[in-house]
């Protein structure tokens, strides 16, 4: 018997039992819809955390002096003077995988403007720092190479600093603020970035040329750290290896000496967060997958009932010339039709539910094509798998017994 005829027969059989077919389908619909919704929620959370991390600069690399012992006493990073400007220059000149490199020195203190003051940290950096931390200047300008060369007393401030110091709402650009009695002219204001994934206010920041901080505030010549960003997130490790090689050479470390610096990357944090979110997604999807399984068992159950109920029909079909495989295909197509139709409706419902979750609960969602293909594929396989045994039972009936079945 040809396939179109089998489809016709299966459709007819389903049409004869609409309510039953629909209820069976409902199991699959709910299963598929929940798999898609759960995956969308899981992937959505993962994506939102990833984007928060990438806002902080997911390809960021932080180099600090460290692991330095003086007379058996481990020193704090800021007390160490091993990281020099030469190291920074060599990193800039010799690495192939970095997009931006900035030295960092910082100092904490009280900042004052008029009657307002607040405790804060001033960061000494170069222009590349904006790119590394994904900042941008909203108003005014960033300091220039000349400002750095001349250790100019200029700074760029974040939104929080502006809000707290300029209570009356005047334009901060061009105003002079004092940090530990040293006057700085504000030449630019950073665009607001809000809080990062760890709950830190990224707008509570003052950036000044690193030379200014070195000479006028800290009176040091070494660097407290170097921040850099890799060309792409996947080059992070190569970049770290290169930096490490340069620093070991500059610091004249022997092959079996420990590093006198530490290099950390955002990628570590990012991969930790991602694996946590992946676990969450798998958990959500497994729970939803169970409902898909239950839906499949529902199909199997109803197909068994259907085979028993239609024993005489099977006997008749066999006596007028249906072969075992015709009967098998008929019932298999029936169960596949139920599961595939259920799957299609389930996909639609899943997408609608995901969007509702997004709108109603303001939860981040992300529907991936593979999650649709996966759940649809699983439900088709479910139809074949759970339809197989009832169909096999039908095909194996003895026509003589079946036709007289009461």
């Amino acid at each position, binding site marked *: 018997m040809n396939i179109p005829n089998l489809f016709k027969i299966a459709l007819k059989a389903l049409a004869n039992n609409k309510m039953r077919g629909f209820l069976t389908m409902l199991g699959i619909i709910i299963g598929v819809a929940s798999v898609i919704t759960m995956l969308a929620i899981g992937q959505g959370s993962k994506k939102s955390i990833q984007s928060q991390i990438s806002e902080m600069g997911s390809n960021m690399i932080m180099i600090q002096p460290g692991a330095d012992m003086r007379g058996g006493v481990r020193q704090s990073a800021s007390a160490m003077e091993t990281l020099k400007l030469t190291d920074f220059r060599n990193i800039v000149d010799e690495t192939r995988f970095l997009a931006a490199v900035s030295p960092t020195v910082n100092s904490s203190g009280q900042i004052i403007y008029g009657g307002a003051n607040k405790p804060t940290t001033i960061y000494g950096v170069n222009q590349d720092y904006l790119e590394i931390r994904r900042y941008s200047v909203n108003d005014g300008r960033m300091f220039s190479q000349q400002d750095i060369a001349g250790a100019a007393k200029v700074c760029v401030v974040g939104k929080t600093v502006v809000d707290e110091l300029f209570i009356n709402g005047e334009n901060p650009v061009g105003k002079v603020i004092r940090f530990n009695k040293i006057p700085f002219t504000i030449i630019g204001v950073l665009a607001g970035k809000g809080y990062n994934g760890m709950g830190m206010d990224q707008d509570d920041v003052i950036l000044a040329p690193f030379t200014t901080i070195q000479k006028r505030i800290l009176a040091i010549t070494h660097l407290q750290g170097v921040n850099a960003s890799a060309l792409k997130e996947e080059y992070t490790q190569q970049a770290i290896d290169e930096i490490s090689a340069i620093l070991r050479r500059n610091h004249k470390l022997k092959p079996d000496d420990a590093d006198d610096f530490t290099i950390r990357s955002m990628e570590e944090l990012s991969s930790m967060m991602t694996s946590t979110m992946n676990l969450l997604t798998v958990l959500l999807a497994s729970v939803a997958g169970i409902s898909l399984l239950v839906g499949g068992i529902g199909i199997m159950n109803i197909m068994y009932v259907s085979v028993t109920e239609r024993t*005489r029909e099977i006997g*008749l079909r066999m006596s007028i*010339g249906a072969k075992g495989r015709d009967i098998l295909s008929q019932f298999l197509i029936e169960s596949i039709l139920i599961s595939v139709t259920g799957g299609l409706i389930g996909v639609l419902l899943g997408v609608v539910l995901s969007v509702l979750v997004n709108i109603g609960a303001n939860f981040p969602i992300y529907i991936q094509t593979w999650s649709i293909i996966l759940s649809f594929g699983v439900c088709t396989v479910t139809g074949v798998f759970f339809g197989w045994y009832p169909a096999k039972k039908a095909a194996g009936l003895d026509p003589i017994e079946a036709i007289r079945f009461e």
Partner: protein
Amino acid sequence: MKKIIRLEHIGRDFQVGDELVRALRDVSFTLFEGEFVTVMGSSGSGKSTLLNTLGCLDTPTRGEYFLDGVSVRAMGKNARATLRNRKIGFVFQSYNLLPKTTAVENVELPLMYNSAFGAAARRRKAVEALKDVGLGDRLNHKSNQMSGGQMQRVAIARALVNDPALILADEATGNLDTRTSYDILALFQRLHAQGRTIIFVTHNPDIALYSSRNILLKDGRVLADTTNDNVRSATDVFAQTPADND
């Protein structure tokens, strides 16, 4: 004349528990094209087993069976299914129509399993067969909208649709009242007159009066095989039987 059926010393044994039941011991007869034969016998005589064998639903333990020149004995399941589809038309006691399905669709069914027929040819043949049995005006009635007699007519049309070499009726009037029985018998007689070969298996001796040949089975053997020279017309009896009007 063409031999439609040739049975040679057919035997069929069943193993029921520890006991060997010999449903058919030794059955031999030949059936020619255009014969209308009733196969009779009380229950346990082996009628059902013979019917299953004739219908290629079952294969004999011993003996040879030729249907339209083809040996059935050594055939596999699938080959027998195809043979049934092309050569045999079944009419059952309880009609066995598909529920919620129209007359035409029911009649089309055997052709669905024959890839030689497309949708249009199927429908044309089905309508033709339904007209043959006098249901030209009930093509799209569903099985639950028809009387017993009409349902049996649909079943007969279904048996005719593939132009079978043999029509096998199993107690085809068993579920019908007397008057409708005669009506259906008259239809069988008309088909016989058109040259169809019919085997009518029944336990009702009355039916034998309307067929051209009677085979009587007892304990798995042919007890009598007689020709009926005085075939009664079911059409006349039907006309004389008053309709139930209560």
